[in-house]
C-alpha cells in the first residue's frame, strides 16, 4: 500500500522537473522580496539596536533572520490542494478517484509531499546559499531546533489541512478561487510570515489569537529565535495538534457530505 503512495510522490516529482523554470522564477521573486523586507526593517530600526515588543526585545539581526527563515519556510509550507480538488470535481475526475482503493486525502497529500520534495531540492538550497551570502542569520540552540522542526512540520500539516478543507468546499461553491485568495490574504497577515505578531496592536492580536494562522509561521519562527520558553513552545505545539485534529474531523465531515451530494446528483 505504501508503495502506491510512493509511486504517486515519484510521479509528481518527475512532472515537476519540467517546471524548473517556474522554480527559478519563484526563487528570484523570493530573493527580491527578501531584499525589500530587509530594507524596510533596516529603515525601521534606524538608530536603535533593539526594539521593544509585546513580549520582550528584538534586534535588527533577529528580524533579518526572521525574514529569511520565513522565506525558507514558505518553500515547504505550500499546497496546491485547493486548485487540484476543484479541478478534479469540475472535470469529473473525482469519480475515477473514488473507484481507486486509495483515500482521497492521502492521495492529495502524497502529491503535495512530492511537490515539496522537489522544492526542497531545488529551492531551499539555492535560497539558503544566496541569502546567507548576502546577509547573516543566527541558528537556534539544540533543543530549540528540535522544537522548531516539530513546529515546522505541524505548521505544514496545518496549512495543508486548511487548504484541503477549503478545497472540499468546491463541492458546493463554484468560484473556489475566491476563497483561495481570501485564505491567502488572511494567512499573509495573521500568520506572522511578513510582520511578526510582536508588533501587532492589541485589537489585531486578539483576532490573531483566535485564528490558527499564527501557528503556521509565527510559532515556529518564535521558537527558532528562542523568543519563548520551552514550556510555552510545547503548549503551542499542542495547540497546533489541536487544530490539526479539528481540521481533520472537519474534512471527514465535509467529504462525506460532499460525496453524498455528488452521488445524489449523479456526478
Amino acid at each position: 500500500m505504501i508503495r502506491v503512495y510512493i509511486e504517486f510522490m515519484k510521479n509528481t516529482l518527475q512532472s515537476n522537473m519540467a517546471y524548473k523554470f517556474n522554480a527559478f522564477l519563484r526563487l528570484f521573486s523570493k530573493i527580491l522580496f527578501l531584499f525589500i523586507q530587509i530594507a524596510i526593517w533596516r529603515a525601521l530600526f534606524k538608530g536603535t539596536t533593539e526594539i521593544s515588543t509585546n513580549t520582550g526585545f528584538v534586534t535588527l539581526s533577529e528580524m533579518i533572520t526572521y525574514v529569511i527563515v520565513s522565506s525558507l519556510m514558505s518553500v515547504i509550507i505550500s499546497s496546491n490542494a485547493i486548485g487540484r480538488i476543484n479541478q478534479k470535481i469540475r472535470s469529473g475526475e473525482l469519480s475515477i478517484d473514488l473507484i481507486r482503493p486509495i483515500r482521497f486525502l492521502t492521495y492529495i497529500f502524497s502529491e503535495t509531499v512530492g511537490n515539496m520534495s522537489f522544492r526542497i531540492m531545488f529551492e531551499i538550497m539555492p535560497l539558503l546559499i544566496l541569502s546567507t551570502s548576502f546577509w547573516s542569520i543566527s541558528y537556534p540552540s539544540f533543543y530549540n531546533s528540535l522544537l522548531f522542526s516539530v513546529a515546522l512540520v505541524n505548521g505544514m500539516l496545518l496549512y495543508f489541512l486548511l487548504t484541503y478543507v477549503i478545497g472540499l468546499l468546491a463541492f458546493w461553491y463554484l468560484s473556489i478561487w475566491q476563497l483561495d485568495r481570501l485564505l491567502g490574504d488572511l494567512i499573509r497577515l495573521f500568520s506572522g510570515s511578513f510582520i511578526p505578531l510582536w508588533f501587532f496592536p492589541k485589537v489585531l492580536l486578539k483576532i490573531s489569537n483566535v485564528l490558527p494562522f499564527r501557528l503556521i509561521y509565527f510559532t515556529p519562527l518564535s521558537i527558532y529565535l528562542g523568543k519563548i520558553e520551552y514550556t510555552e513552545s510545547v503548549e503551542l505545539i499542542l495547540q497546533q495538534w489541536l487544530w490539526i485534529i479539528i481540521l481533520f474531523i472537519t474534512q471527514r465531515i465535509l467529504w462525506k457530505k460532499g460525496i453524498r451530494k455528488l452521488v445524489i446528483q449523479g456526478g
Partner: protein
Amino acid sequence: MKAIALYRRFIVVYLKTRMEYRLTFFMDMFMQVFTYVISYLGIWIILNRFHSINGWGFYEVVFLYNLNLFSYGVSGLFFWSPMLGLGGMVQSGIFDSVLIRPMNPFLHLISRRFMHHFLGHIILGAIVFAICFKNLSIEWTISKVLWFSIVMLGAVLIQSSLMIIAGTVSFWFVKSSSLVETTIYGLRRFLDYPISIYDKWVQVVLTFVIPYGFVNFYPARLFLNKTDGLFHPSFGYGAPVVGLALFLLAYRFWCFGIKHYQSTGS
C-alpha cells in the same frame, strides 16, 4: 471621433454581459479590494508601532502606496487583459482574427475587454485618497490640483507602458508570461515604501532604468515636501514627461513585436 464612440459601444456591451453575472461581478471587485485592505492593515501595523519610516508617517506612506494602487488600477482597466492575455490569444488564434480587422490592433485589443475588476482598485483608491487628504496638511491651490492630475496621468502612463512592454515580451515567449508577471509584481513591491530606504544603486535603477520611482515616490515627495532620497526634489515634476516618453517607447516596442509576428507568418 469615431474611435471614441466605437470604444464606448464596446464598453457598454461588455459591461452589460458582465452585469448579468452580478454577484460574480461584485465578488471580483471585492476580492481585489480585500487584498489591498489587508495590505493597508499591514502598513498600519508597522507604522502604528514604529511611527515613521525614513521620516514618512502613516498617512504619508498610505498616500505613497495609494498612488501606486490607483494608477495601477486605472492602467489595468485598459491594458491588463490585452497585454497580458496576449499569449493566450495567440495560442487560441484569436489574435489572428484581431490582426485581420481593419482597425488598429492596439486599439482593438484595448476595447475588447474592460477589466472591471480594476474598478475595485479605483474606488478603494479614491476613498483612501479622501482619507489621506483629510489627515495630511497639504494646501490645495488650483495649480496643485492641476498638477496632481497631471502627475496621476503620468503615473498611469508609466504603469501602462510597463504592462505593454511586459505583454510584448510575453508575446514573444508565450510560455513565460509568468516571468513577466513576476517581474511586474516583484518590482511594484519596491514601491510599497519610500524608495529612499534602499541602497543607492537600487534607487538609481528605479529612477533611470525602470522608472517606477516616478509613479509614486517622486510625486509624493513633492506634495509632502520631503527631502529624502538621492535626487533633487524637482524630479517630482518628471512623472508626466517620463510617462509620455515611456508610453511612446512601449507602443513602438509593441508595434515592432506585432510586425515580427506577422513576418514569421505563424
